[in-house]
């Protein structure tokens, strides 16, 4: 396979910048694409070349497979990196790249298709001896069969519609009586909405953690895992804080589950970087949920604790190179945490907050990495995902990383928009969080929103005198400049200061 010399990034924001940086390190010409709402964005400024895709709406820009392929061909790109989101898990796109002789940096269309079909994927995993959440193997039509499966999985169980998504069509069932009632209701509901009943049963796991394993596999079939990331701190199934290593994974378990994750990637004949997601219960059982066939948002924490550059590895693997290390060569050093900074107002039910950012201060210092598209004078668009920055800190152990995170959060100021920084400031000082006692319902269970509001009131108190001083300074300024203007009408202006 030929070496990649030009690479098109079919994405925007911080991930586009991340890939541009990898290209620069490898001496690859970087090509970015942009929508009309992004023409001053960082990926336009930093890439070697940049091309317009179309109007702001993603469907008319970053999701336009035909346009992107056309630009790749006319600009002479050998490869396309899809980033995450947009077309990153689109098998048609992967296939189109292949047809046009362009290397797609990611898995094949066939693998994506399998990874995207939850039921089919579960079947493959069962064959490969990968533990999945107890429940039905597929759609259950018959109530008696449902009762039998639920008994085996042990109540409570969840009744899910195969067509549901984002929490819709899910019913929690505590016993056989409830199951019989709910099965009929859910079945009718599904019939009405989709024309067929397609229910399946899964064990309801309480006090669960979300733990995932980073994978990478080359075209010669060498698969490696780069340890785990714990992503249990979530809000409505959206990850907020990630860490590596997980406080509940020791060396033995890491090796064991890591080996299972590699087996899962082999079963799908996986190519390039991906992530095997698991749910872990309080007893330490791991259940496979799905494979994310892309580079994850939270990949930097793995890069930091393993010392491996995942984006560069992706490019090497896409060029047909073999992975340059064996499993036992990979070492886990220290601890890393990532806080996702979203342009959302945590005090107003996380409503999107968009617009001009006149100024910002990006934290730095020992053990701090920030992946962001922000710069003073940039614009945060309402057309795309709300992730504006990833604040990552590193330390010799979790607590060092955590304290560095606390300090970095206080350095991080973004003017003009609301962000999730306040919730992170609250989380990072939570005693259960510090002790590693976390689960996916942490934010609700521990009243984090209330605590955040309380913290804000305290901050108001701390800053009140200084803020009032500012008001008094301004009125003094207005008075002085008015007087100066009257007295020195013919002399120079006093704009820009009154002393």
């Amino acid at each position, binding site marked *: 396979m030929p070496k990649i010399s030009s690479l098109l990034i079919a994405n925007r924001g911080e991930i586009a910048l991340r890939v541009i940086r990898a290209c620069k390190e490898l001496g690859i010409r970087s090509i970015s694409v942009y929508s009309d709402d992004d023409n001053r964005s960082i990926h336009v400024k930093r890439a070697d070349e940049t091309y317009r895709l179309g109007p702001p709406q993603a469907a008319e820009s970053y999701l336009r497979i035909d346009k992107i392929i056309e630009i790749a061909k006319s600009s002479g790109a050998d490869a396309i990196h899809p980033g995450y989101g947009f077309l990153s898990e689109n098998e048609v796109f992967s296939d189109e790249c292949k047809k046009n002789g362009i290397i797609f940096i990611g898995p094949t269309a066939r693998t994506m298709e399998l990874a995207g079909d939850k039921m089919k994927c579960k079947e493959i995993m069962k064959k490969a001896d990968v533990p999945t959440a107890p429940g039905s193997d597929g759609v259950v039509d018959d109530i008696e069969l449902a009762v039998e499966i639920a008994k085996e999985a042990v109540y409570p169980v969840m009744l899910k519609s195969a067509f549901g998504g984002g929490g819709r069509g899910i019913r929690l069932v505590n016993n056989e009586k409830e199951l019989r009632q709910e099965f009929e209701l859910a079945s009718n509901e599904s019939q009405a909405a989709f024309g067929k009943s397609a229910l399946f049963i899964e064990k309801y796991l309480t006090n669960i953690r979300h733990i995932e394993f980073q994978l990478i596999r080359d075209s010669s079939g060498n698969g490696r895992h780069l340890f785990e990331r714990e992503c249990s701190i979530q809000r409505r199934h959206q990850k907020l804080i990630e860490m590596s290593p997980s406080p509940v994974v020791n060396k033995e378990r890491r090796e064991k589950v890591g080996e299972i994750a590699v087996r899962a990637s082999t079963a799908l004949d996986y190519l390039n970087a991906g992530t095997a997601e698991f749910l872990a219960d309080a007893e330490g059982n791991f259940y496979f949920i799905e494979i994310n066939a892309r580079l994850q948002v939270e990949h930097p924490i793995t890069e930091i604790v393993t010392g491996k550059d995942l984006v560069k590895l992706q490019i090497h693997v896409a060029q047909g190179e073999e992975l340059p290390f064996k499993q036992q060569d990979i070492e886990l050093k220290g601890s890393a945490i990532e806080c996702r900074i979203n*342009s*959302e107002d945590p005090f107003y*039910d*996380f*409503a*999107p*907050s*968009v*617009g001009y950012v006149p100024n910002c*201060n990006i934290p730095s210092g020992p053990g701090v990495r920030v992946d962001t598209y922000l710069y003073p004078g940039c614009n945060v668009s*309402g*057309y*795309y*995902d*709300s992730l504006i920055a990833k604040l990552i800190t590193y330390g010799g152990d979790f607590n060092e990383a955590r304290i560095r995170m606390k300090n970095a959060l*206080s350095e*991080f*100021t*973004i*003017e003009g928009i609301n962000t999730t*920084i306040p919730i992170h400031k609250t989380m990072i000082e939570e005693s259960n969080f510090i002790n590693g006692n976390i689960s996916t319902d942490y934010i609700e269970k521990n009243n984090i929103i209330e605590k955040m509001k309380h913290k*804000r*009131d305290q*901050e*108001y*108190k701390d*800053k*009140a*005198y*200084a*803020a*009032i*001083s*500012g*008001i*008094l*300074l*301004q009125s*003094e*300024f207005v008075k002085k*400049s008015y007087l100066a203007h009257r007295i020195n009408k013919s002399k120079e202006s006093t*704009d*820009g*200061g*009154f*002393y």
Partner: protein
Amino acid sequence: MEFQIEGNNNKINAELIYNRGSGDLLFVIDDQKYNLKLLKSTSNEFEFILGNTYHYVKILPSTETKYKIFIDGIIIEIKKHSKITEIIEKTLKSKGIANQANNITSQIPGRVVKVSVSNGDKIKEGDPIVVLESMKMQIAIKSHKDGTIRTIKVKEGSTVSRNEIVAIID
């Protein structure tokens, strides 16, 4: 002058006592003296050391009586109390034009996925008026006060831009 921090009933009294003209000022806040060293100033931005702590303050577009202040990375809203502002507030209220409070505007651009009210509906503060989709999320635009819907300015499926009026209430 008296000030009040958003969400807190305590009043804070603050006055500028003197201005030596070299950047050294003296304030009295809640009966305590504070030295302030002004480092840099423009018409709405001030960098200073109050006591022994550095601060950066930016006065954001504010109304006569309510200041919105960006300070050291957070935003605080502060109300100014004085005889004059009391009179202004009273006059505005009697004329029913306080803060153009009858317009419900969208703080974000997005697509209208649902209109939750009809003309003539009685609504309470916090009631959702329309639901917008933006950044892959659904967000309700809520009323900031009690009232009756006079006009709805948007339809399901239409797009709204930032600060666009979605409804007018009486």
